[in-house]
């Protein structure tokens, strides 16, 4: 269950940064990304899958959230 900082990249996408591992990846898709909720399964461009219980209202980025590995 790593702490992950989610921030917006310059191109408008979301970046997934794990400070402990110094790993930064681009988020490819988010299961629920609506005006009301954000979360569910998050897939990164490297193919790894992570999970977070949907949050509503959606968090303001950048922020640090706790994710679980989905696979």
């Amino acid at each position, binding site marked *: 269950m790593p702490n992950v900082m989610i*921030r917006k990249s310059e191109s408008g996408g979301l970046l997934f940064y794990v400070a402990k591992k*110094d790993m930064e990846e681009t988020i490819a898709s988010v299961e629920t990304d609506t005006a009301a909720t954000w979360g569910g399964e998050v897939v990164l461009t490297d193919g790894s899958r992570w999970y977070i219980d949907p949050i509503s209202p959606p968090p303001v980025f*950048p922020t640090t959230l706790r994710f679980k590995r989905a696979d």
Partner: protein
Amino acid sequence: MSALTREETQALIQEVLEVYPDKAKKDRAKHLAVNDPTLEQSKKCITSNRKSLPGVMTIRGCSYAGSKGVVWGPIKDIVHISHGPVGCGQYSRAGRRNYYVGMTGVNTFGTMNFTSDFQEKDIVFGGDKKLDKIISEIDLLFPLAKGISVQSECPIGLIGDDIEAVSKKKAKELKKPIIPVRCEGFRGVSQSLGHHIANDSIRDWVIPNRDHDQSFVTTPYDVAIIGDYNIGGDAWSSRILLEEMGLRVVAQWAGDGTLSEMELTPKVKLSLIHCYRSVNYIARHLEEQYGIPWMEYNFFGPTKIAESLRAIAARFDETIQANAERVIAKYQAEYEAVVAKYRPRLEGKRVMLYVGGLRPRHIIGAYEDLGMEVVGTGYEFAHNDDYDRTLKDMGDSTLLYDDVTGYELEAFVKRIKPDLVGSGIKEKYVFQKMGIPFRQMHSWDYSGPYHGYDGFAIFARDMDMTINNPCWKNMKAPWQK
């Protein structure tokens, strides 16, 4: 010699790996790669930030070096205690050339070495009492020091001293920030973790200091330069460009920086990151906690400078954008003259670099401005995100080497025969004796600054002076002629 093809470079890597035993070969193979600029992610081709192989000659430093030497050391108005035995601090004292203004020993302490000089009894009975005492002594002898940082060396973590408790107690007593840093050398695989630890200690012990103090008058044009260590005056030749553009540089880390500049950083509008590797942690924190956006920039060589100035200006209003154009135009005649003078002498020369965590990619533009080509590059302590940023900057089929060993670098240089090698002091004499022009790219070989337009003129002169030095023609012994 003309450039190598992809197959030739691959073959060269194989050939160099041949001497290793199987296990070592397998490990090292992951750290050597042929560049492919079409890749988006470096982890497909190169592994980085792993433990160095035992038995090989690595060029890396330790976590203490990353914190005391790099991030904290240049903050000039606080005393940095190298807590532990005397050697770690003494042998690295003042070697980094991060310039500052001030009266050393009175209000600034950059080139001095403060140490708790651990002896056997301190290891056996613990050094907390000694630390308590030297903090008082420092305060007595150097009353103008704005604070003290305690930089742990290996033994501190091993014997389990509680430097945090001592620091808290003394901070209360002396009414000055005392910052404990847990940067024992054995942590992590290179100096990189030391940067991270130093950033975390700044986050916890310095950044929140003025959260409730709103007396600082801000402007919409406040920026902070973060990750410029003022090697040979680099930060100064960068800062003037930003100021000419109409921005106000509130803080400059760490080169020629002060504690209060660090404390004021949360009040700025934008953090400008030069060395991404060593300060991205704090930039991310400032963004999350205070909503300060950050961006990377590159002040090596006119092409990259113009690009960066425009990108920085784009974050502000039209006045600043117009000013950026004016600054670029103002220096145009100057840098064109530099290029006109040196480019004919340097055109087509090939360079191999092996530096720390930023320059292996940042300086490429400056060489290209002089018509030179970087044919191999590598980092001591980069992570994958650094290589991600490097792939695009390097040409196709050029060589990438991560945490290269002494042997590998020598073998590559012998084969590729570059016209210039840029690396550190440990490599310098090896290559000079091989008859290859060499520049130290950590300390600018006692020259500098290299940042900014002023720095570019010095950079070009230095490269010319080294490559076209007549001494290289006289490398052969008379009886071999």
